[in-house]
């Protein structure tokens, strides 16, 4: 039962952005206010997961990664909020931001049922998948569709941080794997 739920949650998460890509082809591309909401939500979801992992993990490397996610994504969201304020844009909820929020909530709910090595593995695995998915969205949707030059520039500027986080998470993933945890 638990496995079915996890699988369903994972499936929902992984299909999220491909659904978005398909929807985008069929329907209109996201507007700038919608892109703003996607950026803010994507960061917030990872901040929430990071706070949980920083508090619950006993693995030094996982803890410091989790702290980093909280710090970095908070910084990115501050920049996003400053820009949104400057451009006088009100972030607009949309199917992508809603699915991100839902996927983030499901991840937290799942993590709360786990402990020790199982918790670390689930958190780090999800971080790898999450950063891959967000990078995919940045490249295929967010940067190409952003209309405002400053919003586009912010996305371009943010991208390398997601790349570095992904590499960091993959390194942790292989470290946890090699310990046989």
């Amino acid at each position, binding site marked *: 039962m638990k496995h079915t739920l996890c699988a369903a949650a994972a499936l929902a998460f992984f299909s999220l952005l491909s659904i978005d890509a398909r929807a985008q082809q069929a329907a209109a591309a996201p507007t700038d206010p919608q892109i703003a909401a996607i950026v803010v939500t994507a960061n917030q979801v990872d901040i929430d997961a990071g706070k949980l992992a920083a508090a619950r993990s006993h693995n030094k490397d996982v803890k410091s990664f989790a702290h*980093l996610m909280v*710090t*970095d994504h908070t*910084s*990115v969201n501050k*920049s996003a909020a400053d820009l949104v304020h400057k451009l006088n844009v009100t972030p607009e909820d949309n199917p992508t931001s809603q699915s991100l929020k839902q996927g983030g909530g499901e991840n937290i709910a799942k993590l709360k049922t786990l402990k020790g090595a199982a918790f670390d593995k689930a958190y780090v695995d999800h971080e790898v998948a999450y950063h891959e998915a967000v990078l995919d969205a940045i490249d295929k949707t967010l940067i190409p569709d952003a209309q405002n030059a400053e919003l586009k520039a912010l996305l371009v*500027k*943010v991208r*390398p*941080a997601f*790349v*570095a986080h992904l*590499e*960091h998470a993959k*390194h942790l993933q292989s470290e946890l794997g090699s310990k046989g945890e």
Partner: protein
Amino acid sequence: MSSSAFGARAAVFAAAFVCALLGPQVARAAKHVVTIEGMQFSPPSVTAEAGDEIVWVNKDLVAHTATAAGRFDSRTIAPGHTWRYVARVPGNYAYECTLHPTMKATLVVEKGNGRRNTK
């Protein structure tokens, strides 16, 4: 006593005179700027002379550090902030951002010969 006072004054005067003559020719420490942007140190390798100043400028949206374990450590450089370090001891220092282990770079400190052109 008065002759020693005279001697001291003369020495100070002579020293000042020599400094005034040589001052402009004594090499001034150079400044090297390392820009932190796009999760990278740029340039990835800097060669400085002992006594030179290296300035790291964080142009990213997230905080970084420039850390060579046991040698120098900027601690957190917040976005939009800088950190200055005067390199004293010659050597080849690999350094990294302790927050983001994918960010690595090198600082080479050569023995200063005092005859370089600044900048």
